[in-house]
């Protein structure tokens, strides 16, 4: 999920104030500089590894699990697809709308091939967590060193 980092404005030192101003100008593109975008794609993902698995995590609050499709193709192409919908039973006038909705699709190229049949996906508290076991060919192999 794209988030705005919370920075208390007046509780910091003066040099921080300076930085906050700079950040403010940057964010609103007042100096013409491009806005700093951490991740232009939705959803942003975090990726970890160990010797046996890759781990992928993405924040998808409010996405119904049945509207979420996770696919692995060609060993290392991970696709996250889904549709984030506003709760249907709401009626009235919007005073503020900051959350985004709609369909999304993202392809993440994994650094190594994974075993697509053994991928585990968990979706809890609006966070999607994938555990992708490395394909046998992509596992690190310990080479026995022979001493003479």
């Amino acid at each position, binding site marked *: *999920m*794209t*988030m*705005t*980092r*919370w920075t*208390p*404005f*007046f*509780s*910091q*030192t003066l040099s921080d104030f300076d930085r906050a101003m700079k950040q403010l100008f940057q964010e609103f593109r007042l100096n013409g500089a491009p806005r700093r975008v*951490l*991740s232009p794609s939705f959803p*942003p*993902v*975090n*990726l*970890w*590894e*160990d*010797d046996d*698995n*890759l*781990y992928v*995590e993405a*924040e*998808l*609050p*409010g*996405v*119904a699990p049945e509207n979420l499709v996770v696919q692995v193709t060609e060993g290392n192409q991970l696709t996250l697809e889904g549709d984030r919908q*506003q*709760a249907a039973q*709401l*009626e*009235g*006038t*919007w*005073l*503020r*709308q*900051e*959350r985004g909705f709609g369909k999304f699709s993202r392809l993440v190229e994994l*650094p190594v091939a994974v075993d697509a049949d053994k991928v585990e996906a968990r*979706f809890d*508290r*609006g*966070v999607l*967590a994938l*555990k992708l076991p490395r394909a046998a060919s992509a596992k690190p192999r310990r080479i026995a060193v022979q001493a003479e």
Partner: protein
Amino acid sequence: MSEKQSVPPAQSGALVPVRPAVRLVFTPRVDILHNENELVLLADVPGVGPDDIDVRFENGELTIDGKCAPRAFGTRPLGEEYEVGDYHRVFTLSNHIDGDRITAQLTQGVLTVRLPKREAVKPKRVPVQGA
């Protein structure tokens, strides 16, 4: 309903702000809707469980505080496109809200707060009599 910048209790009053050790705080994104009976506030707080969220209504202010523990898997990070942290946001409410009947629900990382309006401010339908 308007938003208010405020200082969390840990920092107010301290002359030299002590920064918590890499504890990030995010402003959750919200949608706010109103109708005749209530205000509805929806906030994205992914990663927060029902026990880790604190919704407080005090002195006409609605405070949302969510605790979210850092998550990491495996042994080596390969890429980080977002950061995980706590959530904090404060809203000032008009006195039209009946504070005793506020309810909150957390589903799949989305917090829904329902803020019913007082009976006195609800619109009344006036019957029109024909001749």
